[in-house]
């Protein structure tokens, strides 16, 4: 297993996410969790594009499948290596985003990651949550304006969005 694969597993462990790949929802959670980890400042080197379910990175999928083929298994890596303190602190900022029942986590992370992506990549005009909501709806993510507004606030409170950048919530 290479350094990036090890780092992925440690980040997921820190976020209390199982590195399972069997189900689509498992893979979705991993994709969005790593996306948000990078937004929190833990640079794992993954570049995300936009797919039907929001931010997605092919290289991450390849690395995760590679790790799944490793006979040492996840447990061994998680026993042998540990994250540094600063990375742990940065991941700690994701606490509020991760608070959900297991069955709701995929939708929640997809929502936060998608909102972050659209604002961070400046793909929505600076006119409040309305356009952002419409853009999400075009990809079957039906959230109310209040939910979108709250998501932006949560992302800002976690310091995942720079205060000065363009975005629908800029005052």
């Amino acid at each position, binding site marked *: 297993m*290479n*350094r*990036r694969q*090890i*780092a992925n597993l*440690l980040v997921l462990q820190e976020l209390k996410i199982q590195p399972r*790949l*069997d*189900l*689509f929802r498992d*893979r*979705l959670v991993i*994709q969005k969790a790593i996306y948000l980890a990078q937004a929190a400042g*833990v*640079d*794992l*080197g*993954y*570049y995300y*594009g*936009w*797919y*039907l*379910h929001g931010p*997605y990175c*092919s*290289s991450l*999928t*390849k690395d995760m*499948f*590679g790790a*799944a*083929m*490793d*006979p040492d*298994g996840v447990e061994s890596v998680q*026993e*042998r*290596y*540990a*994250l*540094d303190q*600063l*990375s742990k602190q940065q991941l700690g900022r994701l606490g509020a985003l991760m608070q959900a029942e297991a069955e709701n986590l995929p939708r929640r992370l997809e929502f936060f990651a998608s909102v972050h*992506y*659209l604002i961070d*990549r400046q*793909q929505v005009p600076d006119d409040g949550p309305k356009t952002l909501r419409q*853009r999400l709806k*075009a*990809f079957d993510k039906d959230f109310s304006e209040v939910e979108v507004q709250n998501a932006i606030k949560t992302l800002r409170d976690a310091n995942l969005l720079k205060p000065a950048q363009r975005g629908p919530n800029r005052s």
Partner: protein
Amino acid sequence: MDRIVVDSIHGAIELTELERRVIDTASFQRLRHLKQLALGHVTYPNATHSRFAHSLGVLAVMSRVLRSAAGKLGLDEEQQQDLRLAALLHDIGHYPYSHLMERLDHTVLTEERNRRSDRGTPKIDLRRVLPYPGHEEVGQLIVTQQDDLLDAIGDTARAQRIADLFTRGRAADLQLSKLIHSSLDMDRLDYLIRDARAAGVPYGEIDINYLLNHVDVSPTRMVGIKYKALPAAEQFLLARYFMHRTVYYHKTTLAMEEAFRQLLRRCRDKGAYDVPRDGSAIRELVADRAGLSEFTDHFLVSVARRALENDNDVIKRLAEAIVLRKPPKLLREAVALIDVTNETERKHNACTSFLRTCEDRLEELAQDHSLALGLFLIAEPPDIQLEKRGALIPAGEAGAQPSDKEDELIKVFVPGKNEPRSLVDIPESLIKHCANRVARIVRLYVVEYDQAKVQQLRDEVQAW
């Protein structure tokens, strides 16, 4: 059309004035100095074709797809031009020797694999080495930051739009982005034929004309292949598999590439010969006009040449292997065709057990033969799969849940259906029955040229 370029694969490729301007930039001309097959020419002497020629080839394929599909997709002229430019520029961010350098962060030094060393709990400091960005991100940076390309394209917003097409960055243009990345995979349609012809092997030949003449578009704007071209689509996927087995993963090429990768990792760790220290150094380099124009295969060759004088014996011998074309010798190879849906097979197969043995026994072998551990190279190329996999469950059951990249699977219009189906879901397709399997290869080499010593090592390793 303003200009014609004659290509050995596609014949006459017509260029618009805008495309001509883009091609004439220094940023695009850099692609002439990146070999498509990295070190493939050490095995196949004629495989020296460039990413420049390949990029023109992908433009030619896009041009033909648009001829068949633009009307049904309702694309206006500007959208078509943007797609053509995205095809032309899709590889603009490639590193010298392509994936060899790009994947440097994936390179594990042989000493680091040693399982017998202290197995305490090392801290992973994620900020110590910011990973190199992938070529898609580098491409996006080049297209949106290099003045020559911005001048040629005309405005920053359009440059960003084009970059977003080939990186799939823009949510609003998902439908257009799909065309670049869609199941037709124009990138692959060009490179398989180009690489096969340059190498002189028959395995990559595909019926590209038949495939492109049978492109169709569904009422929901899904692009696919008509059913009568099903065998051509299957052969297209099989061709990629055979090209990996024969050309891309040739034992000599892989040996040289692994030696080069290990050399670069060691030089980078030592801060030697201007090898970019991390991802931020790469981003600075590609933002600079002069830096970018020198970021070619020649840059890496010069690293290897300078490393010939290094006082570290492992670095020096790796450099000699590359500069003097003295390929490391193969000691043993493990190959497995793995059913990825079977967890036991996935984790316990010929490759994984050989890797574990190497990790357990290489240090002792090196000591016994008075060789530095770093002179043993383990090459572990990415698995070869027939079709983009989305799960560790059987392909037939995969249809019951959404696929991560459904829009990138090959689609076929089955008779009687308006919307195309993924090839992996068509029962009579050979691909459906092979889609769960990946081919994995692991090879152990040594940088040593004394025949008797190599044979002795080979005998010992074979007996493990």
